[in-house]
């Protein structure tokens, strides 16, 4: 026998034995039904790994029906870990199909009143025998079973009623009640129950009143799949933070027993009245989620073998829902400064795969969208909605609590558009790392959503255009502190920038490259920023397009700034109606330093160049609360700038080399000190008519001030020194090289009294004049004005006179050449007033003074003068005591005034001066009494003087001895009752009477004009009464005339010692007892004067030689002088003839004026007179 045959033989024998064993077993159990129950309990126990007991079991073969009651399953290891109890179970079975392909049909399965109790740590029973690959025997058995018994199982009818399940899962109790399961006529299964989950620890409860599952295919062994639909209704969730009023939803379920894969398709959950609120006290932000409806759509696949749970995709739609984030802490930092953030209409779409084995969630991708995000800076205030879109692709490692998003996109309302990578680690303390591959930020839109306070500050600023950011940032915590680390670069190019201030607008295009690297706050920052096409304009100024740039580097809090450059091609300023253009303004600072911690800012050198001011260097130092500002420069053209700015007087020209050095130091908030020095060299100034000119001046101006900013009390120290150059001020000239000028002022501003107090003021022209002063100057006071007192110490008067009187006026008043003055002058003057009402009162002194006009014979010696001064701009009605003064002259002498002493009291009133007591002046032969003198309008160009003068019997012989030595007797007396000097014009009333030559001369209408000019004119009218011609002519070269003379000399004008105009009438009058005779010589002289030639020529001369004197009847002469033309006529007219001398009787001689229009020039007349008086040289 061959081996093969042997094998077949043995197999056949085995098969027969097995069949026999099977038949035997069937037969046995059929005949011994009591043995089946333990066997089944045993098989089930072994199969499920549990302890299965059946209280009662019965069956029938035809029809096949199995009934059981009191079925219990318990855990083998822990008896209480789970329990399953089935009150009763009945199953009707039939077989259908051809041999070998029999199908077991469960005609009816009924399970009633079952309960399941699961405790902590339970696990579902596992059907044994499926582990690993099946053995040969089991395969044979399975094949045999398929061949001889059935190969498929189908349920035709199924009813499970009144089941319940209670499970303890962790801290949660899960209970399913009213579990109903049925297989309908279409062989579809329907399962329904009521579920409840309670978690007492967290006060959470979930109640699902109805869960309904209906399959859409018949359960089959050959195709072990279940598919159907799941419905839940009326679900409510209650928790501390989350409450959901109603959850209902549907899902398609598909469970593949072979693949052990449970999948949910078309999952739709709808939640109504969702409310989530988290207001934990330890949070600064509360979360409040509310929604009328929250819809979740997804498909979910659970692959039990692979341990994966896959959602693909998941869509969450919140209808009319809102997530409100509210700031509950005082600080709003956690909400970026917002009071509330409302996120509405949230949509979440995600494709999520849960890998149970690795405990990770794969989301590829997950996207979150919302079109309505409201940022509320203040309660009630709302900005227009933002849209948000976030998508992410990556892994969430649940065990490590780590999110690794290989791709993410973040878009917020076109404000931020970014993509990159994200890592989030929630294992211990949250830490986020973002790597930005591309980030585009629009600042102008972000600024709109800043909190109100910040927005108000940034409102004027509009930065348009994108800012591109690259790099990575990690945000996390270290201990209790936050930690931010990163390396980012931000770039923007020609972004429009607009800054609208209250009074200016700035527009520009800025570019920048900013990088930051490090751990906050120790971040290394470098920036390179530039501005192009910048324009700045405001009220009254415009900066035409300019550029600027700077470089910044450093690590917080210290930054170095380098190469700050600004070039403004042109700036235009409008000053009133004037337009000022400044070209090429350049600002440059090579370096600066900012220290946030030390609170220091340092820019030691900021250079300014422009078409106006040049070479200015500023320095700025901020150290905490202290600020130091320096300004220095040379040849800065400050004068030109001031001129262009119309600061200087119009029409004036200024030039010079200026050098400035100033320091301003602000110490804290309350103290400011200022020290400035301004030097001007080669300084020139000149006004429009060149009457005020300075040349070659060297001036040093220094000022120091200490100001208490709390009270504004300030000390001021101001000095000016001018030691070189010349100044012409109208008529006054100063050589500062000879007489350097020094001005110093020390003062203080008193904010309480609101005034400037100047205790010490000094002005000194070396070797010439010094003025010291002090005073107070109120600021904006209606009631009081400045009060200044000035003192001039004893100063030699000679140089003062020379500089202030002689040099300026010598050309117009040559008399000054003759004046020599000695002595010391001094003064004490006070000035007070307000708003145009000024009063200047004081005294000017001259001590030991001497004034000589030697050429004119005038001497004043021993002058002590106290000259009171009272100037008042506006007269007032106040009664005020007059200011007293005096003048005393130890010795005064002049022509007609013998040496004498004079002492006079002076009294000054408002704009007036008076000498109230009469002044007696000695003159040769008597006295002249000058009455009280009153000078008003004394400080105008034309003061008015009023006085009176009386002459008291002055001996005429003595008085005129020098001029008319042959005068023998007579007196001068009279009174000029009113003497008035006004506008260079002197007028008098009254008369002066002289009694020379036994007659009378009356002088009236005495006056003068042009007194203080180069051509004064003396005027008077003279009346001649009964003058004895004999006394006048005796012993004169003119020739003797006897008789009485009357006449007048009217409108007499005398200029420069010469008669300029007169109307002369001389006539003799016959007087009893007075002989009228005239010497031949006198006749001859009269004839010569009248006619120009002697009458005694020829025969007349021979005849006249016999006589010395001739009688005459009358002599009458009228003469006029005007315009240098002398016209002489006789006053005696007889027979058509005009006689100058009419002979008496038959003797004598007639002098005829044969030319009625007898004119001769004054020059000729003088010559004639000189000839006849023998004074001709």
């Amino acid at each position, binding site marked *: 026998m061959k081996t093969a045959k042997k094998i077949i033989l043995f197999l056949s024998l085995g098969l027969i034995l097995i069949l026999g064993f099977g038949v035997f077993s069937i037969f046995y159990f059929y005949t011994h039904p009591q043995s089946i129950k333990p066997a089944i309990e045993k098989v089930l126990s072994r199969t499920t790994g549990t302890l299965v007991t059946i209280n009662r079991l019965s069956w029938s073969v035809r029809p096949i029906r199995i009934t059981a009651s009191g079925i219990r399953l318990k855990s083998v290891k822990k008896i209480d870990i789970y329990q399953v109890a089935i009150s009763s179970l009945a199953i009707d079975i039939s077989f259908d199909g051809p041999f070998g392909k029999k199908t077991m049909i469960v005609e009816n399965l009924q399970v009633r009143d079952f309960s399941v109790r699961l405790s902590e740590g339970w696990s579902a029973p596992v059907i044994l025998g499926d582990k690993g690959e099946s053995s040969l025997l089991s395969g044979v058995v399975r094949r045999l079973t398929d061949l001889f018994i059935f190969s498929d199982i189908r349920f035709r009818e199924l009813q499970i009623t009144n089941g319940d399940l209670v499970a303890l899962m962790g801290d949660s109790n899960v209970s399913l009640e009213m579990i109903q399961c049925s297989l309908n006529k279409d062989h579809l299964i329907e399962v329904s129950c009521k579920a409840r989950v309670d978690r007492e620890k967290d006060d959470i409860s979930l109640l699902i009143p109805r869960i309904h599952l209906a399959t859409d295919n018949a359960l089959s062994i050959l195709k072990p799949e279940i598919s159907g639909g799941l419905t839940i209704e009326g679900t409510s969730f209650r928790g501390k933070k989350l409450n959901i009023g109603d959850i209902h939803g549907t899902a398609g379920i598909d469970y593949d027993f072979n693949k052990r894969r449970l999948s949910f398709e078309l999952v739709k959950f709808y939640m109504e009245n969702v409310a989530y609120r988290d207001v934990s006290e330890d949070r600064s932000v509360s979360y409040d989620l509310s929604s009328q409806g929250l819809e979740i759509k997804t498909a979910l696949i659970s692959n039990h073998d692979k341990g994966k749970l896959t959602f693909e995709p998941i869509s969450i739609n919140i209808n009319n829902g809102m997530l409100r984030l509210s700031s509950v802490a005082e600080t709003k930092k956690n909400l970026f400064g917002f009071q509330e953030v409302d996120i509405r209409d949230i949509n979440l779409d995600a494709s999520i795969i849960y890998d149970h084995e690795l405990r990770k969630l794969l989301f590829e991708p997950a996207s979150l969208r919302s079109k309505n995000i409201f940022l509320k800076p203040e309660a009630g205030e709302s900005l227009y909605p933002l849209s948000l879109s976030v998508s992410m692709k990556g892994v969430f490692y649940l065990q490590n609590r780590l999110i690794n998003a290989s791709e993410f996109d973040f878009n917020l309302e076109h404000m931020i558009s970014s993509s990159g990578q994200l890592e989030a680690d929630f294992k211990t303390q949250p830490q986020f790392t973002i790597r930005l591959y591309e980030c585009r930020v629009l600042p102008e839109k972000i600024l709109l959503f800043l909190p109100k306070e910040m927005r108000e500050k940034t409102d004027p600023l509009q930065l348009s255009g994108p800012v591109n950011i690259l790099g990575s940032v990690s945000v996390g915590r270290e201990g209790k502190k936050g930690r931010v680390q990163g390396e980012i670069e931000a770039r923007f190019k020609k972004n429009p920038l607009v800054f609208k201030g209250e009074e200016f607008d700035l527009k520009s295009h800025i570019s920048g490259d900013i990088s930051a690297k490090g751990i906050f706050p120790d971040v290394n920052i470098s920036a390179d920023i530039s501005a192009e096409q910048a324009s700045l304009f405001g009220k009254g100024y415009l900066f035409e397009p300019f550029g600027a740039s700077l470089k910044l580097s450093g690590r917080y809090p210290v930054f170095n700034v380098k190469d700050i450059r600004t070039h403004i091609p042109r700036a235009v300023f409008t000053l009133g109606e004037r337009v000022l253009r400044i070209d090429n303004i350049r600002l440059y600072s090579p370096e600066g330093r900012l220290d946030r911690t030390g609170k220091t800012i340092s820019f030691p050198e900021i250079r300014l160049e422009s078409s106006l001011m040049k070479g200015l260097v500023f320095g700025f130092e901020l150290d905490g609360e202290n600020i130091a500002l320096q300004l220095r420069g040379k040849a800065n053209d400050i004068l030109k700038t001031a001129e262009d700015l119309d600061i200087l007087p119009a029409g004036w020209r200024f030039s010079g080399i200026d050098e400035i050095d100033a320091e301003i130091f602000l110490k804290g908030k309350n103290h400011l000190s200022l020290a400035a020095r301004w030097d001007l060299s080669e300084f020139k100034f000149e006004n429009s008519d060149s009457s005020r000119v300075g040349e070659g001046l060297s001036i040093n101006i220094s000022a120091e001030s200490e100001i208490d900013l709390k009270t504004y009390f300030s000390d001021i120290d101001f000095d000016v020194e001018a030691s070189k150059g010349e100044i012409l001020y109208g008529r006054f*000239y100063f*050589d500062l090289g000879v007489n350097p000028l020094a001005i110093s002022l020390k003062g203080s501003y008193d904010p309480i009294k609101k005034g400037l107090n100047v205790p010490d003021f000094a002005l000194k022209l070396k070797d010439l004049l010094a003025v010291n002063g002090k005073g107070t100057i109120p600021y904006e006071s209606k009631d009081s004005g400045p009060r200044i007192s000035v003192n001039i110490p004893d100063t030699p008067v000679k140089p003062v006179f020379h500089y202030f009187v002689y040099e300026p006026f010598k050309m117009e008043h040559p008399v000054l050449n003759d004046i020599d003055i000695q002595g010391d002058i001094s003064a004490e003057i006070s000035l007070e007033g307000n708003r145009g009402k000024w009063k200047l009162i004081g005294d000017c002194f001259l001590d030991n003074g001497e004034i000589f006009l030697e050429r004119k014979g005038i001497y004043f010696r021993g002058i002590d003068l106290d000259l009171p001064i009272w100037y008042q701009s506006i007269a007032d009605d106040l009664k005020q005591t007059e200011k007293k003064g005096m003048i005393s002259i130890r010795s005064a002498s002049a022509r007609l005034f013998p040496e004498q002493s004079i002492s006079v009291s002076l009294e000054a009133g408002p704009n007036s001066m008076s000498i109230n007591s009469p002044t007696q002046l000695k003159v040769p032969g008597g006295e002249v009494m000058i009455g009280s003198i009153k000078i008003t309008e004394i400080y105008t160009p034309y003061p008015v003087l009023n006085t009176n003068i009386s002459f008291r019997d002055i001996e005429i012989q003595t008085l005129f001895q020098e001029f008319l030595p042959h005068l023998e007797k007579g007196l001068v007396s009279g009174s000029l009752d009113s003497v008035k000097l006004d506008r260079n014009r002197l007028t008098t009333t009254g008369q002066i009477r002289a009694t020379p030559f036994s007659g009378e001369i009356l002088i009236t209408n005495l006056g003068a004009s042009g007194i203080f000019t180069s051509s004064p004119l003396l005027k008077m009218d003279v009346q001649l009464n009964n003058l004895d011609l004999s006394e006048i002519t005796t012993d004169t070269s003119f020739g003797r005339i006897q008789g009485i003379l009357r006449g007048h000399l009217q409108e007499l004008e005398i200029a*420069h010692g010469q008669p300029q105009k007169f109307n002369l009438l001389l006539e003799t009058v016959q007087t009893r007892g007075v002989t009228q005779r005239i010497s031949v010589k006198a006749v001859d002289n009269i004839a010569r004067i009248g006619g120009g030639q002697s009458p005694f020529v020829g025969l007349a001369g021979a005849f006249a030689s016999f006589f010395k004197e001739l009688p005459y009847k009358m002599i009458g002469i009228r003469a006029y002088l005007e315009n*240098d*033309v002398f016209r002489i006529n006789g006053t005696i007219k007889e027979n058509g003839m005009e006689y100058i001398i009419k002979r008496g009787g038959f003797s004598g001689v007639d002098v005829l004026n044969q030319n009625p229009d007898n004119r001769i020039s004054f020059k000729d007349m003088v010559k004639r007179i000189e000839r006849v008086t023998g004074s001709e040289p």
Partner: protein
Amino acid sequence: MKYIKRSFGIIFLCAVISILACVTINIYFPAEQVESVAGEIVDDIRGRESTGDQESMLKTIHLVLSSNIAWAQDVTDVSNPTIRALKEQMKERYSQMKSYYDKGMLKEGDDGYVAVADNSSLNLKEKRDLNNLVNAENKDREILYTEVAKALKIDGSQISKVAEIFAKEWQK
């Protein structure tokens, strides 16, 4: 014949216009006499020899022929002590001013007064002295013009016209 008549007509017309013009001018202001006086005075001050004799002669003839001239009978030299003194002062001053004239630092204005033209080459003291010189000169000129007007019986309101006529002489 026609030609002769036409020429005679033109001459007659010119004569009438000339006479009327003379009347119109001389009634109000004795310009010719002021010119004459101004010439004499200025020549005297400046030390120039009078070049206006022939001119004055012609003027005199013209004045005699002009029967409508009311003041013609008072033709005289204009002088008095004030004018003489002024002339002396101005003569003396002119000696100081001449160098400034020569250097172009002074200019005679059309108003009869002298002014500083260009004093840039002077130092300030010299400028001051020059200014004072000019001021003194102008004050004297003001008096001079007043006196001349008074001598010629010209109303005080027309002194500026006198000054303007003098200006022409100063500017020579």
